[in-house]
C-alpha cells in the first residue's frame, strides 16, 4: 500500500482526523497555524488529484476495499476534481486570512472550537464532492451544514442577530436535508442501490411515480441547500451575520458544492432520458434561475449592508448556474461549471475585502466604505477588481463565465435568455458601481475626534485576498484551466447522461 494509491481519501481523512486534534490545542495562534497547515496539505492533495484525473481519467477509490455498489466508492471525474480544487483552494486562502479577523470577531477562548468547525465544514464540503455514493452525499452534506450553523452562530459576539439567522438556517437546512434523504429513500426503494453509477444503470428506463417523487424531493432538498430562488431566504441573513471569515469561506464554496450535487444527480444519476428531468429544466430551473438573476440582483441594489448585498448577489449568480444547467446542452452545462469555479473565486475575494473593512472599521454598512481608497488602498482595489469580475468586465473570470453562458444561450436557441443574462449583469454593475463610487470618489466621512486613524489591513489578510484577486485575472486570461477543464467535464457528464 503506497501513499499515491490512497491519494483520493486524503482530502477527507486528513481534516477529519485533524479537526478533533485542533480542540486539544491551547487557544491563541496555534490552532490557526495548525488548520492553515492542514488546509495547504489538502489543497496540494486536491491539485494532485485534479492533475491525475486530467491525465489518466476517472479515479474510482473503494473505501476499505469494499467493492461497489455494496461498499462506498469515491468516484472522481473532472467535474468533481475541479470543485475539489476550488473548495480546497478557497480554504487554503481563507484559513490563513482568518486569523486577524477571527481574533477581533470571536472570543479568543473559542478559537479552537472555531477552527475545528472550519475543518469539519471543509471535510463535509469535500466529502459531498468526492463521493460516488448517494447516501454518503447526505451524510457529508449534513456534516458541512451543521458545522455551518455553528459557525454562523459564532457571529453572535459582534451582532446578536447571528443567533436567529443561524437558527433560521438550521430549520431551512434541515428541511432541505430531510427532503433530500426522503428522495434518496424513494430511489432506494425503486432500485435497491445507493451507488450513483449503479443507480444510473438501474434507473434507466424506469419512469414510475416513485422515481418521479424521489426526483422531486431531491430537487427541492438540494434547491434549499443551494439557495435556489425562492428558497434562498436563509442565505442573506446567514452570510450577513456570520463572522467575516466564515462568510468568505461559505459564500465561495457551500452553494457551489450544492450546485455540483444538483448537476451530479441530474446528469449522472437520472440522465437526460428521464423525461421528468427535461420538464424540470423547462418549468423549474429556467424560470427560477431567471427570477433569481433579476429579483435577487434588484434586491441587492437596495441593500445598505455590503455583506447582505453580496449575499443577494450570490442568489442572483446562482441563477446563472441554474440557467446554464437548464439548457440541457453540453455548452450550457460547461457554462454552469465554469461559473461554479469562477463565482467561487470572485465572491471569495469580495467577502475577504469586506472582512478587511470590518476588521478596521467594525462596520459593514455602505457608509463605512466611503472614501476608503485613501485609507485602505489594497483592500479597495481588491474589491474593485473582484467587483468588476462580478460584473463581467473583460480579462476577468466573470467575463469568461458570461461569454460561455451567453454563447450557450444562443446555441440553445434561447435568444431571450442571452439578453436577460447581460441585462442582469448590468444590474450587477449598478450595485457594484455604487460601492466602488463610495470607495473611490468620495472623501472619507469625518471620524470622531480621538479615534485612531484607519490603517490598511494586515499583510496576513491582504496577501491571501490578493491571491484570489490575481486568480480572478489570471483565470480570466488563461482560460484553458477553468473553461477548458470544465468543458471537458461537461462533455464527459453529457456522455453519461446520454445527451444530445
Amino acid at each position, binding site marked *: 500500500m503506497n501513499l499515491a494509491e490512497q491519494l483520493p481519501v486524503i482530502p477527507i481523512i486528513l481534516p477529519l482526523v485533524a479537526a478533533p486534534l485542533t480542540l486539544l490545542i491551547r487557544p491563541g495562534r496555534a490552532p490557526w497555524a495548525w488548520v492553515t497547515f492542514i488546509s495547504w496539505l489538502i489543497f496540494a492533495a486536491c491539485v494532485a488529484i485534479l492533475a491525475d484525473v486530467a491525465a489518466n481519467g476517472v479515479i474510482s477509490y473503494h473505501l476499505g476495499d469494499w467493492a461497489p455498489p455494496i461498499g462506498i466508492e469515491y468516484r472522481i471525474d473532472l467535474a468533481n476534481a475541479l470543485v475539489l480544487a476550488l473548495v480546497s483552494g478557497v480554504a487554503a486562502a481563507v484559513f490563513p486570512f482568518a486569523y486577524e479577523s477571527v481574533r477581533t470577531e470571536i472570543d479568543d477562548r473559542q478559537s479552537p472550537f472555531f477552527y475545528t468547525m472550519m475543518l469539519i465544514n471543509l471535510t463535509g464540503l469535500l466529502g459531498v464532492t468526492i463521493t460516488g455514493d448517494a447516501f454518503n452525499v447526505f451524510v457529508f452534506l449534513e456534516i458541512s451544514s451543521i458545522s455551518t450553523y455553528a459557525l454562523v452562530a459564532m457571529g453572535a459576539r459582534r451582532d446578536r442577530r447571528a443567533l436567529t439567522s443561524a437558527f433560521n438556517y438550521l430549520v431551512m437546512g434541515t428541511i432541505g436535508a430531510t427532503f433530500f434523504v426522503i428522495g434518496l429513500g424513494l430511489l432506494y426503494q425503486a432500485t435497491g442501490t445507493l451507488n450513483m453509477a449503479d443507480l444510473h444503470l438501474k434507473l434507466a428506463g424506469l419512469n414510475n411515480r416513485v422515481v418521479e417523487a424521489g426526483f422531486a424531493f431531491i430537487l427541492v432538498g438540494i434547491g434549499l441547500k443551494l439557495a435556489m430562488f425562492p428558497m434562498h431566504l436563509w442565505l442573506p441573513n446567514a452570510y450577513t451575520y456570520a463572522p467575516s471569515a466564515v462568510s468568505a469561506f461559505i459564500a465561495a464554496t457551500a452553494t457551489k458544492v450544492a450546485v455540483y450535487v444538483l448537476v451530479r444527480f441530474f446528469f449522472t444519476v437520472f440522465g437526460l432520458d428521464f423525461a421528468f428531468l427535461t420538464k424540470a429544466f423547462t418549468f423549474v430551473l429556467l424560470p427560477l434561475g431567471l427570477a433569481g438573476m433579476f429579483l435577487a440582483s434588484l434586491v441587492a441594489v437596495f441593500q445598505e449592508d455590503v455583506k447582505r448585498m453580496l449575499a443577494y448577489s450570490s442568489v442572483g449568480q446562482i441563477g446563472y448556474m441554474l440557467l446554464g444547467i437548464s439548457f440541457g446542452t453540453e455548452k450550457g452545462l460547461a457554462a454552469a461549471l465554469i461559473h461554479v469555479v469562477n463565482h467561487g473565486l470572485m465572491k471569495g475575494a469580495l467577502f475577504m475585502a469586506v472582512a478587511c473593512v470590518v476588521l478596521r472599521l467594525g462596520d459593514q454598512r455602505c457608509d463605512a466604505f466611503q472614501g476608503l481608497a485613501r485609507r485602505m488602498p489594497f483592500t479597495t482595489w481588491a474589491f474593485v477588481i473582484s467587483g468588476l469580475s462580478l460584473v463581467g468586465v473583460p480579462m476577468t473570470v466573470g467575463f469568461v463565465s458570461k461569454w460561455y453562458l451567453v454563447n450557450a444561450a444562443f446555441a440553445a436557441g434561447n435568444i431571450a435568455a442571452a439578453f436577460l443574462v*447581460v441585462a442582469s449583469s448590468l444590474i450587477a454593475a449598478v450595485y457594484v458601481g455604487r460601492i466602488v463610487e463610495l470607495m473611490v470618489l468620495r472623501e472619507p466621512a469625518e471620524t470622531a475626534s480621538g479615534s485612531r486613524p484607519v490603517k490598511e489591513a494586515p499583510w496576513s489578510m491582504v496577501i491571501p485576498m490578493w491571491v484570489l484577486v490575481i486568480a480572478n485575472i489570471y483565470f480570466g486570461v*488563461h482560460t484553458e484551466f477553468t473553461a477548458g477543464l470544465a468543458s471537458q467535464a461537461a462533455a464527459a457528464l453529457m456522455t453519461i447522461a446520454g445527451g444530445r
Partner: protein
Amino acid sequence: MISPELAIIASLAVPLAGCLAIWLLDKRPNLREGATLATGVILLALTIVVFAAVGAGARPGYEVFTVMSGAPLAFRAEPLGAMFAVLAAGLWLVNSLYSIGYMRGHHEAHQTRFYMAFAIAISSAVGVAYAANLFTLFIFYEVLTLSTWPLVAHKGDEKARRGGRIYLGVLLATSMGLLLPAIVWTYAIAGSTDFTVGGLLARHVDDAGPVAAILLGLYAFGIGKAALMPVHPWLPNAMVAPTPVSAFLHAVAVVKAGVFAILKVAVYIFGVDFLHKTGAATPYLWVAAGSILLASAIAMHKDNLKARLAFSTVSQLAYVTLGAMLATSMGVMGAGVQIAAHALGKMTLFMCAGAIMIAAHKENISEMRGLGRKMPVTFGAFFIGALSVIGLPPLAGSWPKFFLMLGAVDAGQLSIIAILIVSSLLNVVYLLSIPLQAFYLSPETGGGKARGAGEAGAPAIDWGDLKEAPLLCVLPPVLTAIGAFVLFFYADPLFAYLAPILEDQ
C-alpha cells in the same frame, strides 16, 4: 526600422510606459509633460511604420494568446485601422501641446492623473484600431470607456460627477447590454469573431441571413461611442470635461473609435455585399439620416459653444454610420474619409473653444460678439475648421460629403442626397454664424439685444491690442486647420490607400 509586427505591439506598450513615466515624474511638471510629448512622438513614428507597411500591401499581425477558442487576443493592421491609428497618434501629439497650454492656463488640479489617463486612453484607442477580431476590439473599447471616465469627471464637483455617471452609464450599458451579446451571437453563428475581408457572416448566410437586421441593430446601438441617436446623451454630458478632453477624445479618439468600429463591423463582419443583398442596413440608414438632421436642429438652439459643437459631432458621426449603412463601396469610402476629415475639423473647433475660454473666459456664443477682433488667429482657425466641417472646398471635409452622395446614388437612395444638402445648410447656419458674429458684430454691453451702432462698420482689427490665449493654446488649432486644408489635396492617395478594404483577397 523595426518590423511592423513589433511596431503594433510597441504602439500599445509605449503609451503605457509613458503613463508610468508620467506617474514617476509627478512632482516635476516640465519633465512630466516632456514624457507625454516624447511618448507622442515615438507613438506617431510607430504608427507611421505600420501605416507604411500596410500601404505596401502587408497585413502585419500579432497574436498575443488565445483566451477562448476562436477568440484570441490578436492584432492585425489593415488600411482602415492603420489610418485611424496614425490619425489618433498624430492628433494626440498636437493635443498634448494644447493640453499643456490649457491645463496650465486654467490652473487645473490633478494634472498627473489627467496625463496618465490620457496615455491609457490613447493606448486603448490604438488597440481598437489594430484589433484583429471583435473580441479584442471589445476589450480595448471597454478600457477606453473606463480610462476616459476620470477625464470626464475631472473637476470632481457635483456637475462633473453627474456627467461622468451618465457617460459611464450609457457607454457601459450599451456595450454590455447590446454589443457583447451581438459579438457572442456572431461567435455562436460563425465560431469566430475575426475581421474577414468580404465579411465573416457573409460566409454563413444560412444562419446569419434571417437575423442580420437584428444583429446589425445590436451593433449600431451597442457601439454607443458612435453616438447614433438615441444613444447619444453621453456625448453632450461629457462636455463637462476640460476642453482638451473634449477636443481629442470627444472629437477624435473615443467617438471615432465608435464609428470606426461600426464601419469595421459593416465591412468585415457583415460585408458590404451581404448587407446590400439582405437590405438589413436600410432601417439604420434612416436612423442615421434622422440623427444627422435632428442633432443639427438641436445644435442650432445651443448657446453654449461646447454643447453646440457636441451636437454637431453627433450629427457628423452619423455621416459615418450613414456611409456604412448605405452598403455601397462609395458609401464606405465616404465614411472612411469622413473619419479623418471630421477629426481634423472638429478638433480645430474644440481647441478654439478652449482657447476662447482661457483668454476671454467666455463659453456662450452670445457673449462672443466682436471677440474676433481681439482673437483673430483663434477665430480664423475656427472659421477654417467650420468650413471643413460644413464640407466646402478646398477643405478636407468636402470629400466625404461628395463620396457619400455618390454612394447614395449607387444605393438608389436619392432622398439621402437631399438630407445631406439640408444638413450642410444647417451646418452653415450654426457653425459659420459664430466666427462671423465674432468678427463683424461689436461686443454688446448689458443684457439688451439692441443692435445697430456696432454693425455700421466693423472696426479693423487692432493688431497691437490682441488678447489671444497662450501660444500653446493657439498654435495647435492652427496646425489642425492647416491639416484640414492639406488633406483636401491628398484625398486621392487616401482613397487609394483605403480601397483594398473592399477587395476580396
